[in-house]
């Protein structure tokens, strides 16, 4: 998950998708696509609902590359939905903006807690263990590992 889009060349088709603020963040890559004369669609996610976007993305052909720019707070649920359709990590660039929460995996009970980005320590919502947030990341859990903060 990034906060700035980077242009990836050589794809069959591009989809630039986001809410109004998100599409502004994609303007540089969108312009680049236009300049290069590439095949693309621009998709405005006006209400941040997945259903229509899911149908639209399902109908695309192999080799389609997606830029998705929406608030960090809803980015993960969209990512999960795109993965379920079959868009792999290398098929999509996820661009977030706004407040960012970090998912933290509790080393004791496996609960995934949401932490503010600047927060280094937190208490697990389920087992109350104090956790120290590490930089060890699991793509499967989409979470960072929280270790025992103190013995």
């Amino acid at each position, binding site marked *: 998950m990034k906060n700035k889009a980077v242009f990836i060349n050589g794809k069959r088709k591009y989809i630039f998708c986001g809410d109004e603020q998100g599409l502004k963040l994609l303007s540089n890559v969108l312009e680049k696509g236009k300049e290069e004369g590439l095949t693309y669609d621009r998709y405005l996610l006006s209400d941040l609902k997945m259903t229509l976007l899911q149908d639209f993305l399902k109908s695309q052909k192999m080799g389609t590359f997606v830029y998705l720019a929406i608030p960090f707070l809803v980015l993960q649920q969209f990512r999960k939905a795109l993965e379920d359709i079959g868009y792999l990590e290398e098929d999509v660039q996820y661009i977030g903006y706004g407040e960012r929460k970090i998912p933290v995996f509790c080393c004791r009970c496996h609960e995934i807690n949401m932490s503010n980005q600047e927060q280094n320590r937190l208490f697990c919502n389920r087992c109350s263990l104090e956790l120290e947030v590490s930089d060890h*990341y699991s793509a499967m859990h989409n979470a960072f*590992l929280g270790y*025992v903060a103190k013995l």
Partner: protein
Amino acid sequence: MKWTGDLAHFPYPFKDSTYRYSNNSIPMKQPFCIEVTPSYKKEMLLKRKLLSDHPERCYQSLPHSITGQWEIVELLIDHLISQYPQHFSVEKENNSWIFFNKILDEKVEFIFGDENSLSCEPLFFISHHVQEDLIYMRQRDDDLYLDAGQLCFPANWSLAFNIGMKFKNIHHPIPGFKEEGLDQRILQFLMRLEAGTPWERLNWSLMAGDRLDTSLETFDQWGKLRKHVTRENAGELVHIRVEVQKLFRLPRTNSILFSIHTHLLSLEQLSTNREWLQQFYEILSELHAHIVEYKGISHYKASLMHYLEEQLERVKAT
């Protein structure tokens, strides 16, 4: 769980008087991925209790790992009956297998390759008959992925967190491992592993206490003992923890089986071997700070060194 066998059989892990992270794998002389030790019954009881009480912590698998799990079942049963025919046997009629564990007086009937013929997944089943932890890494897209595992005796890591991870990502927390390029070198080594040519390596750490199940999930319980180490009790309380790790290529699924057999030896026992005592003292004396920290020794290193110095003086005086 303390070492009760002959000290000469303990897998003492050091060759030199310094220690650095390295790929210390060597080709196996006896190509068996399992070992039955005198503590088999006691460890199987503990392992089965952990698997029953904490299945999520001790067992993880992804759906596409089932074929590889059967390969593991076949390999392990083959090794058990070849190495310990007095304890294990199997009767096969086409795909109908009857596996006998004579130590535990058990008989398991199943149809090889048919998941429905067992009450659990194949890896889960065979885990109940070997002391080793079993990790299944699938090779694809020029990488290794942790696709299944049974882990009851981990050295402070979480299978539940690491499931599905790539090799380098699993080892991300080890300080210096990436910076020194070891992660890439070991990954390349593992991906070149050939069927029929297994390798093994020894890994070590120190711990306060003699628990085998030092999972990350229970660190808040067993980790506290680190604070209680003194020069007086270090010999009894601190244990060297050695993992005998064996690496087998599974040719049908082009994956790798890591079997991990964990052994614990108190420093008191280690100190009875004069050469080991001297060498271990030298290794700890010059061990890099980041390794001391990662191996969990920093809390009590000073007490430990005092204890070892006292033992060395005692030995010199005799």
